[in-house]
């Protein structure tokens, strides 16, 4: 039974180092607790009172610390989560309870947090306390007549209706899809720059959401794979589309959600090997030379390499690494040397080809879904598991 209240677009930068995250945790907690003390005392004392000195100093030191770490400071109190520079701050139950009151007090003024780009002064902070003592709604600069030099209030910009309105399944789907696009695109981008894969465990949560949403609106999920983009944006959308198609395929096959999740993850990361190819090769309209051909040939191995970088060998980790390699193999039964390919590789190969064929590329126009299926059945037939290819047609029937 799942009842988690996770939502995309909130949380913390999981790609930061452990030390950075620990520092954000420490400083964020210090700032949050100082703010709570300030808000509580603001109900009883004038902003010039000495009672504010210690918490203000604690808050200011947290600002300085986080600016030194991240180059910026932002403390947000959203719902039941406190975030420092977007990272969720872990709080014990008692702290959470007292901060709920702070959240409510700030929320009543339309404020959800505090931001700073440079060190603030105690004087400036006491001015803020003065403003918070009142009950009126504030603007992001505090008092427009006398704005803060360094501090900025983070305002809740949603209307009351927006705050109350439940997010529709389609909108959840859109957000999860967009997150998937970004994960895949960022991974390829970061790898191209010599960086890391976007945190796979976090991508796992996006895919989890896609799997859940597919169960609630399978047709919309399938339709979403029609979303196309060109240029550099192609790779992110292609990856997300393959994930969506693979999850839909798995659902129609009757696979358990564990396997559907494997398929989604395999789809999302199946092309990370593209990072090893120069953009000029990726978009080259003509034939590739030998060197370029070799680069294309080994890119599935590069994909497997980066996906095994985390040294994880649990089944899900191996599935996605294997699929990234195996989905590019030819399953040519006529040669009598059919490679051993797992389900994820076989499904992703089909979904990948379908999405690629129905997308416009620099070297050819997009095919209609029906035409793409025809090509897959004829010219590309030896690349696929024929049984699964036959089943795929019925999965994507609504798109034809």
């Amino acid at each position, binding site marked *: *039974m*799942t*009842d*988690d*209240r*996770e939502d*995309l*677009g*909130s*949380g*913390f930068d*999981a*790609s930061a180092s452990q030390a950075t995250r620990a520092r954000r945790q420490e400083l964020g907690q210090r700032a949050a607790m100082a703010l709570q003390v300030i808000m509580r005392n603001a109900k009883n004392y004038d902003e010039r009172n000495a009672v504010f000195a210690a918490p203000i100093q604690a808050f200011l030191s947290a600002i300085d610390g986080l600016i030194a770490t991240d180059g910026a400071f932002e403390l947000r109190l959203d719902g039941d989560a406190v975030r420092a520079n977007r990272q969720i701050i*872990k709080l014990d*139950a008692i702290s959470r309870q007292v901060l709920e009151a702070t959240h409510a007090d700030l929320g009543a003024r339309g404020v959800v947090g505090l931001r700073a780009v440079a060190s603030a002064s105690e004087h400036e902070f006491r001015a803020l306390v003065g403003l918070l003592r009142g009950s009126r709604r504030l603007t992001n600069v505090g008092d427009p007549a006398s704005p803060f030099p360094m501090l900025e209030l983070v305002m809740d910009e949603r209307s009351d209706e927006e705050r109350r309105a439940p997010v529709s399944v*389609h909108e959840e*789907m*859109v957000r999860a*899809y*967009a*997150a998937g*696009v*970004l994960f895949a695109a*960022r991974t390829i981008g970061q790898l191209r720059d010599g960086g890391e894969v976007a945190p796979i*465990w976090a991508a*796992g*949560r*996006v895919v*989890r959401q896609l799997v859940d949403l597919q169960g609630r609106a*399978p*047709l*919309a999920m399938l339709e*979403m794979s029609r*979303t196309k983009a060109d240029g550099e*944006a192609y790779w992110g959308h292609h990856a997300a589309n393959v994930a969506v198609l693979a999850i839909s395929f798995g659902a*129609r*096959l*009757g*696979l358990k*959600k*564990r396997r559907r999740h494997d398929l989604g993850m395999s789809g999302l990361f199946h092309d990370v090997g593209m990072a090893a190819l120069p953009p000029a090769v990726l978009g080259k309209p003509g034939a590739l030379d030998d060197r370029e051909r070799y680069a294309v040939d080994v890119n599935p*191995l*590069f994909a497997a*390499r*980066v996906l*095994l970088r985390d*040294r*994880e*060998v*649990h*089944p*899900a980790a*191996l599935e996605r690494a*294997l699929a990234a390699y*195996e989905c590019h193999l030819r399953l040519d039964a006529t040669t009598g040397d059919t490679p*051993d390919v797992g389900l994820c590789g076989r499904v992703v190969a089909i979904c990948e080809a379908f999405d690629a064929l129905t997308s416009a590329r620099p070297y050819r126009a997009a095919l209609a879904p029906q035409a793409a299926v025809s090509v897959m059945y004829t010219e590309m037939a030896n690349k696929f598991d024929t049984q*699964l290819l036959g*089943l795929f047609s*019925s999965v994507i029937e*609504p798109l034809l």
Partner: protein
Amino acid sequence: MRAGQPAAEVARAFEALGRAIKRIANYRHQRDKHAEYLALAYSELHELIVRQGALTVEVEPAALLFDGEPVLTEPARDGSMCFRLHRDGVRRLTFLPGLTVEELLAFTRIALPEIQDDHGPPTREDALIELWKADLSHVAYEAVAAFEVAQTEADELAVEAAALLARETLRAAAEKLGPGPEEALLAKRPIVGASDLEAIDPPEGPRRLQRAAFLVLRVVERRVAGRDLDSLRESLGRIIDEMLRLGDAPGLLATLDRLGALGDEAVTEIRVPLGKRLSALPRLTRFAALCDASIDLFVFGLPAYLKMLPFDVGPTLLEAMAAIEAKGIRAAFASAMAVRIEGCRALYEEALRTAPAPISQALLSAIDGLDFGLRGFLAALALQHADPSVQLEALQKLAASDPQTALAQLGPFLVHREPDVRIAAAQALGRLPMEEAASLLLGRMRALEFGLAERVEREAFHVALGGQKTAVGFGFLSERLTHSPRAGLLKSRHSEEQLLAIRGLAADGSARALRLLEYAADVHQGNPAVVASAARAAANHVRELLQRVLVGGE
């Protein structure tokens, strides 16, 4: 849970749960016992839930809280359940009426963090995803978001751009399709039946591991590993650990085979470091146990495995041998140790003298491939072993490898308390064609008590003496065969001495021995019939041998 529920009852149930978790954590490999460990905790928890309704607890890094009070506390460290759940974003757990012991067990196994077991640390997905995948009907959870998709403004713009496109796609689809088809698709049954599905997606465990191992090796062989070589090595090591854990003999065999076929560069990059990893004691003993159950793995896999081990693995091999029952596997381990003797010389010597007899024997058998002089030295050390069976083998080895040392060492064993050892010592000396060796034998054979020894021992000494082909030995045997009965010696005893001399002369096998035997076989010499008959048979045997040698020589 309803207000007013006594926190003490909840605390008691969770105390029991905490104890069960601790026990399961300590005995993770005894999976069949886990349900039993959990039984008491389950019954308390179940009773509470039935009586009071759903039970919700907050998850903290070092505790579960009920009503703000800790009901289960643990140290906040990697090995703790609360820590893992909290780290992965789980903040609240609710146990619902209908909870089964299987569900509680599944939950416990998910919540328990990864551990360093005998075969290395297994890796796991994060707890939230595992909980989600497990789909437990009566364990609900709430989690906080634990990631930020967009880290920069550019990311936010990219997400928004992707969302805009997707929104537009869905809007267009909704306009085209209306609400009906969605319900229709939701109602559709899977497109394949259960049996077809199993054929399409068979259980993958070992097969997946083997493919993954091959994939890592392919990445390395194709020179694509780059700066991830370390990670890939570690991944391969963990894959092999999984194979060991699962007892996947075919997977191990195929992977070792593939490792053996690696090119030179890949050997340095992956096989050497992997060999170091595989030399850890738990892995060695586990592999040995698997070899015991799989003949293929023993015949083909074990040599490949042992070959990969590093130069300094000797002490670990010796330690592993203590747990190995199968003689063949122990012998293979001993050979691997002998090959690396320069890395563990002192230990090898010590083990020859003092290790349990089966180990010392295996180590002794393994010295055949070593340098001639070293073999004799090691065999002489093994003579110091307290166990006669080791001494016996050592005597043979010693005589075969180092005559001078054997000569110096074997004397005392001719009067050993154990007849078998005395016989083995005589046989060992029998291989030394030296007058000094013959003198040693004769010293014992002329002693009065030798006459009291069992026939088999006396025969062994005579054969050994003959085998030496020495002048002094021949003299003794001919004198025993031809002399007249000594005064006071029984006739039958005299005949027995003659028969023993015949056995010795047959072992001598020389032309002079043949002449003597032919002489004794002559009925005119007055020897008892039994002696003449034995001499004749022995003469025939020796003649045949000599003819064979003659023919071979031509």
